């Protein structure tokens, strides 16, 4: 009993609160990355290995626009639009011809795109990480920390983008087209829905969301050509744990995993805390292979 009492007494509540905030912030950005990924998987059955590179290129476009105009919010919009157009072009050129083929083909294609984009970034922007100034420099006191407002703004913005996207899927004309196409591609065509363009549109939308999260995250870590790797790996874990193709599941799983990692980082160092994600992934695959929040097809 003494040991338990001692353990309870030793729980650092201030740290737990700080890490809760950190976990939610990271979780929201991760949710934004993962929702594009899960949408593309859900509707197209395409596992998009280039998603992290679209995130990374989005951040670079953001850096360039900020450097020339000084306006972060303009950079956010320009980057999302630019990368959405790039995503549409990539889909038309590489994925559309592969519709109906073995999924392995699309995996190889997106993996190829990922390598090309990553090396393009290395060649074009060099190996040195770029810094992105934060658009908000204010801080508030969280216990003994100066906590940047920007982090909270990022979390709120990510939530707003995901929320807007959900409303679009739920009530918009094109949202209904997307959901109908996800459920039955053949019947959707029979109802006059231009399915090939819906697929292109969805890929563009996912790419734009990846770019937006890249720009939002850039001021927190800096921008380099490998920044997509960590994120896409984690986003894949989130998509699997949340249930492939489930938007709500991805959001919950992103926050869940980010919180676990943040709490684990109290006791172990942050690079070891990543292990927690993999433990969750393996447990999910063992006991709930369709994901914790999978929607019935």
């Amino acid at each position, binding site marked *: 009993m003494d040991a338990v009492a001692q353990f309870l007494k030793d729980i650092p509540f201030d740290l737990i609160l700080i890490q809760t905030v950190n976990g939610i912030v990271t979780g929201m950005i991760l949710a934004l990355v993962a929702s594009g990924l899960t949408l593309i998987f859900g509707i197209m059955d395409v596992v998009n290995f280039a998603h992290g590179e679209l995130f990374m290129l989005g951040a670079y476009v953001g850096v360039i626009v900020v450097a020339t105009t000084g306006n972060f919010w303009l950079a956010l919009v320009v980057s999302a639009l630019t990368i959405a157009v790039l995503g549409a072009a990539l889909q038309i050129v590489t994925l559309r011809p592969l519709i109906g083929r073995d999924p392995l083909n699309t995996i190889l294609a997106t993996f190829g795109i990922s390598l090309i984009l990553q090396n393009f970034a290395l060649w074009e922007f060099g190996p040195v990480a770029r810094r992105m100034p934060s658009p908000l420099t204010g801080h508030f006191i969280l216990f003994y920390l100066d906590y940047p407002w920007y982090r909270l703004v990022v979390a709120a913005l990510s939530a707003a983008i995901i929320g807007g996207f959900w409303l679009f899927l739920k009530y918009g*004309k094109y949202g*209904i*087209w997307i*959901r*109908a196409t996800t*459920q*039955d591609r*053949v*019947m*959707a*065509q*029979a*109802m*006059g*829905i*231009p*399915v*090939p363009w819906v697929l292109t549109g969805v890929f563009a939308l996912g790419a734009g969301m990846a770019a937006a999260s890249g720009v939002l995250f850039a001021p927190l870590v800096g921008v380099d050509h490998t920044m997509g790797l960590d994120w896409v790996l984690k986003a894949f874990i989130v998509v699997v744990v949340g249930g492939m193709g489930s938007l709500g599941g991805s959001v919950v799983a992103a926050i869940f995993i980010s919180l676990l990692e943040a709490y684990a980082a109290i006791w172990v160092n942050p690079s070891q805390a990543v292990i927690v994600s993999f433990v969750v992934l393996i447990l999910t695959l063992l006991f709930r292979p369709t994901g914790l929040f999978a*929607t*019935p*097809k």
Partner: protein
Amino acid sequence: MSEPDTTALVSVTDLHTYYGKSHILDGVSLHVGHGEVAGNIRLEGRSITGVPPHRLAKMGIGYVPEDRRIFRLLTVMENLRTGLDREGVSDERKRALLDKVFTYFPRLAERRNQAGGTLSGGEQQMLAISRAMMLEPKIILLDEPTEGLMPRMVSQIREIIGVLHREGVAILLVEQNVPLTLAASRRVYIMEKGVVRHHCAASELDVNHAVIKQYLGV
């Protein structure tokens, strides 16, 4: 009619469908074999061979598949909207179309916010037909609409075919239910093993006719 196996050749020769005096399908000829499609299909004299499926819907072909293929996770309303949210349909027209199907099928109006997958088989059939009607089609391809339905629903389907017909929609009905087909159709084609064995006006046949006995064994 036996199910042709997938490698068999299906060929329908000289298929004509009439509505009133207008020649809606003029010489459909299709020839399917070994995963290939060849031949020429015409709608109102225009070739539609190779036209992407979503364009066909815009040209006025409504499709009610055998297994209904309701969008299971979409509500009844959303299922209807897949055909209603087309370009150039005024809000007034949309309301009129919805009013029409909800008058024919009050059950759908009651369940408009329910997911399609939770409907009964009969309700799903109503929804599949209503959904095709949202396209304001010139012709509806109706594939075995009575399969797996209760007798009461079968007679309702019969009524719906009549209503569609009165509204000027041509119907290409594929059915194994001979009495229903003879009652609902103007022309019939009897197919066996992918070949049209006999065709004539529906009024020339009844369930006890020798041709029916020969090919359909009833």
